[in-house]
């Protein structure tokens, strides 16, 4: 098959969106099978196309992408083209998106069973998949922005799926507006680059940026603005606040959108534009610092969360931060690798938590759970594997990707970056183990919940198992042998790269500390929470009450924003409304009308009704005119 057919990947789910949206409510089971079929088709199609892609890609000949576009509109010499651009980065994204999407679709059949607006859920899910696929294969920033907004809307719709709940509505609103603020930056960035290069085509922009055809100021401003968009989408500090709240959405949505795919759009964008950013002054450092700050800050917050999904959400934000660190270190390889492994692991964790939630009849507070491993063996086991994988233990998937990251960070920035990144990994180990222990082991906190807990059906556990396998194995693609065996030119670092491919080799000087850090995290977590016993952790919290308070309240980000919104934005709005009413309207508009009316009421007083006064007016008129006439004549 011709690789240019890759647009079909998006077209299939998009078409299915319309079918389900309009006809879903009349179909048996809301047409959920159509959803599965659509994502399944995309999944299959992708793997059918993959060999063709690989055939075309030829590093030697510097052919690394498939591109094709059509003219969309023309205004004078302002031509807009829409097209697809598939390179290894896209291929990775395809793999992640189609795989996770399929799993989530299948899982949702079980999870969403019996929910109102069941068909609507699947419809929007298809729209999301389509948009996400379009996003990653867009060859120009305009199409990218369009898809970018569409995934945002899908996210909004799905977060607010349970719109009867005030909190869900608020969360959806928050997510949309927060990312929208970032989007302002993205759009400005796009337009700044357009102004300098007269094109939206990403490759052309990169080419011109590397050729020094973009002035430094514009390059910097454009890059910063664009990166703001990435930060918003990928929930980087200070835009991270929306993601934890987004957990109000159905759990499969959290898995797909808020863990595996949409939130990594920012990472994808940065990876895509990295050659441009790299040319801009200080941009890489900024990216790195933002990534590290996010990773550390959110890891800290995760300690004090008791909601399973919130913990996972913060961990997601942290991992996204690490991806940015990788990008900031100039390593697209590490970022994309991390992205992929994280997607599988985190999707597994979310789906696992979804399984727990459904199995325990909608309980997601750790304080009510505990000891359910026995009741939910498959879920528990897969969750356990994923926990260890996320913690970065070898040979599970994320170990390898983090290893790449560490190497890149060390190469680019030296030890400080490495140390901070490892600190984040260390923290992950602790709170992930805390999460697992408090959820699955020890004595049940709430016997009533425990009593009713049971394992979920196969339609849900199936995807768990599949993803579990991926979580274990997907890291191995780093090896040359595994890569070639799969038909790739080699390991992932020989496939996805920015400047030169390199063959992965284990650097023990890095690997050993990495393993130790991960182990230490897991161990400390296990020590503190062993047996789901909270005494030690409570003591810890009491020892440093102010620090605990700080992380418990998420560093008061929400409160600060609320303050700014209430006092700043809304205050300004009230001020403007007041100004509009009382100054512009009542004074300016009504005022001038009143002045006119008042002038009339004064003037009419001359009309006294008395004849001598009237005669006087005539006389005065004549005298005035005559005097004026004489005066004018000189």
């Amino acid at each position: 098959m011709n690789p240019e057919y890759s647009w079909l990947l998006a077209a299939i789910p998009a078409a299915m969106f319309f079918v389900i949206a309009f006809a879903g409510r009349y179909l048996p089971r809301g047409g959920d099978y159509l959803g599965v079929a659509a994502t399944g088709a995309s999944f299959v199609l992708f793997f059918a196309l993959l060999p063709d892609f690989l055939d075309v890609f030829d590093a030697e000949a510097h052919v690394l992408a498939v591109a094709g576009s059509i003219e969309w509109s023309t205004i004078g010499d302002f031509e807009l083209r829409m097209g697809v651009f598939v390179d290894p980065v896209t291929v990775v994204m395809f793999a992640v998106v189609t795989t996770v999407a399929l799993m989530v679709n299948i899982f949702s059949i079980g999870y969403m069973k019996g929910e109102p607006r069941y068909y609507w859920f699947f419809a929007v899910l298809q729209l999301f998949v389509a948009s996400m696929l379009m996003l990653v294969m867009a060859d120009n920033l305009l199409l990218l922005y369009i898809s970018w907004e569409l995934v945002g809307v899908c996210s909004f719709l799905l977060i607010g799926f349970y719109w009867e709940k005030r909190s869900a509505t608020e969360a959806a609103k928050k997510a949309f507006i927060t990312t929208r603020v970032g989007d302002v930056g993205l759009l400005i960035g796009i337009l700044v680059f357009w102004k300098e290069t007269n094109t939206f085509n990403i490759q052309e922009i990169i080419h011109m940026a590397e050729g020094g055809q973009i002035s430094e100021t514009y390059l910097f401003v454009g890059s910063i603005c664009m990166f703001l968009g990435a930060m918003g989408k990928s929930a980087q500090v200070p835009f991270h606040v929306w993601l934890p709240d987004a957990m109000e959405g159905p759990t499969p949505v959290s898995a797909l959108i808020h863990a595996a795919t949409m939130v990594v759009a920012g990472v994808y964008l940065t990876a895509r534009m990295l050659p441009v950013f790299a040319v801009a002054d200080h941009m890489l450092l900024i990216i790195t610092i933002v990534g590290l700050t996010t990773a550390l800050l959110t890891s800290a917050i995760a300690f004090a969360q008791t909601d399973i999904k919130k913990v996972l959400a913060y961990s997601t934000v942290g991992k996204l931060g690490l991806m940015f660190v990788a990008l900031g270190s100039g390593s697209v390889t590490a970022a994309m690798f991390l992205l992929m492994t994280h997607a599988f692991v985190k999707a597994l964790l979310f789906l696992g938590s979804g399984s727990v939630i459904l199995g325990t009849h909608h309980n997601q507070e750790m304080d009510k759970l505990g000891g359910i491993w026995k009741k939910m063996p498959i879920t528990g086991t897969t969750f356990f594997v994923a926990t260890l994988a996320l913690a970065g233990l070898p040979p599970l998937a994320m170990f390898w990707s983090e290893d790449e990251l560490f190497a890149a960070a060390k190469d680019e920035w030296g030890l400080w970056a490495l140390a901070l990144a490892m600190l984040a990994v260390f923290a992950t180990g602790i709170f992930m183990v805390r999460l697992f222990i408090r959820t699955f082991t020890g004595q049940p906190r709430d016997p009533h919940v425990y009593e009713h807990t049971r394992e979920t059906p196969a339609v849900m556990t199936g995807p768990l198992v599949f993803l579990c396998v991926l979580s274990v194995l997907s890291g191995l693609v780093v090896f040359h042998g595994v890569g070639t065996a799969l038909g790739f030119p080699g390991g992932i670092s020989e496939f996805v790269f920015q400047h030169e491919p390199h063959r992965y080799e284990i650097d023990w000087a890095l690997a050993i500390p990495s393993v130790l850090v991960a182990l230490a995290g897991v161990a400390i977590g296990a020590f503190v929470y062993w047996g789901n016993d909270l005494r030690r952790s409570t003591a810890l919290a009491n020892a440093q009450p102010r620090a605990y308070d700080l992380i418990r309240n998420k560093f008061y980000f929400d409160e600060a924003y609320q303050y700014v919104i209430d006092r700043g934005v809304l205050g300004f709005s009230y001020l403007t409304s007041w100004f509009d009413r009382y100054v512009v309207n009542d004074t300016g508009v009504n005022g001038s009308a009143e002045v006119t009316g008042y002038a009339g009421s004064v003037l009419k007083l001359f009309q006294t009704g008395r004849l001598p006064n009237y005669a006087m007016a005539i006389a005065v008129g004549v005298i005035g005119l005559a005097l004026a006439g004489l005066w004018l004549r000189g």
Partner: protein
Amino acid sequence: MERDYTLFIPEFIAAGGAVLVLAAELIYPKVRKDYLAYFTAAVALAWGISALFYIGNTVGNFQGVIQTDNFTTFFRLLGSGIVFVVALLSAQYMNRRTKTAGEYYGLLLLAGIGMVYMAAARELITAYIALELLSFSLYVLVGYLTKDNLSTEASLKYILLGAFSSAMFLYGMSLVYGITGTTYYDGIGAALADRSGDTDTAAVVGFMLILAGVGFKVSAAPFHMWAPDAYEGAPLPITAFLSTASKAAGFALILRLFTGPLAANADDWKWAIAALAAITMTAGNLIAIQQKNLKRLVAYSSIGQVGYMLVVIAAIGYGDRDTAQNASTGLLLHMVGYVCSTLALFTALTAYYNRTGKDTIAGLRGMAETQPFLATIVTVSLFSFAGLPFFAGFTTKLFMFQGSVTDGLLWLVALAVANSFVSLYYYLMVLRQVYLFDPEPGMSRFSVGPVLWVTGAALTLGVIFIGVYPGPVFEGAERATDPLFGVGVDAVDHAAMDHSH
């Protein structure tokens, strides 16, 4: 032709009709009053039809004092038309309010004649006498409701102020006569042109006094103060007559005077007209905002309209000959539109008043429910006054102002447009009563008599016709102004020149 009495045939008809009407009641006192009205209307019709025969490029001149040219014909048609409509309006209205109506209709016709000769006069004495003929008739007609205090009061104010201002007018004419030695327009024009450049205080002051006289007639501020009171006190149809015929006649006189004899001395008066125009439109429109009585509202609104029309006269002073004719053409067009709209409005108001006895703005409350047809007429005419499109006012104002625009006068036109905008407010205040409120309890739907219905419908259609397709009237107006500017006039009888040596 020294004494061509055929030139007067239309007015002979009218005057004869007037005498018949006057006599009819003397001979047969029990004659139905509305028959008199219809007879008057028929006379007016005959008058107008006979006037049609004078359309053309030939100019008839009676000893240099009266000229029957297209301009005169225009005002004959206008005058007879106004008399026709006013007579129809009066039929029912006067029937209830007076026992002797013969004089009323007779004077109406005579007033019309006065109007025509104001337009036809080419000599000051004639103009003065014609003006007094119109004025005298109106003094009586305004005060015709002798038992009505307001009517008498209005009449008293009108006649005393009228006499006062005509004294001013006469003094001005005497000064002009003093420096020119003649009363013929052509002679005055020639004499003034000879003297132009001198510092003639007499000319300047004379012009101003004349301005006061004609300004009073057309009710230009500050000579306008009689108007609201006279309008309010007068019988409703006479209010209509006052606001149409009286003004039209005044402007006819002004046009003859200011485009002809006084044109050479434009520098001496143009600023005054511009100032009067500005004051008049502003005062009229601003005071109108505060009115409660419909007749007074119309009075002030018509004062505002006079302000717009004076812009044209100012343009005659400021612009060149072409501008002068364009502006005058616009003025005549606007006059037709304004007359149609005003008469339509008064048709509706008369019909409404006959039924309800209400002439305040608030009295129109719920008119859209009780009489939608009348409400439509009111709406159309008020929108036409406000210069909204589809109706005459828009087109005629646009043409009039466009014709008047010269570089030096744009400010005045702008002021006029601004005033026209202000005027919309009080017209809307009337429509607010008509449409936005339910009728007072006890008011039910009623029907309008066929005469007023047809009159109103015809006038409304006229307003719309002029508003949408102004071509014919505009062309007619231009033909009417031709004689003023000596365009296309083949057979000007220069007899007048002989008198002016």
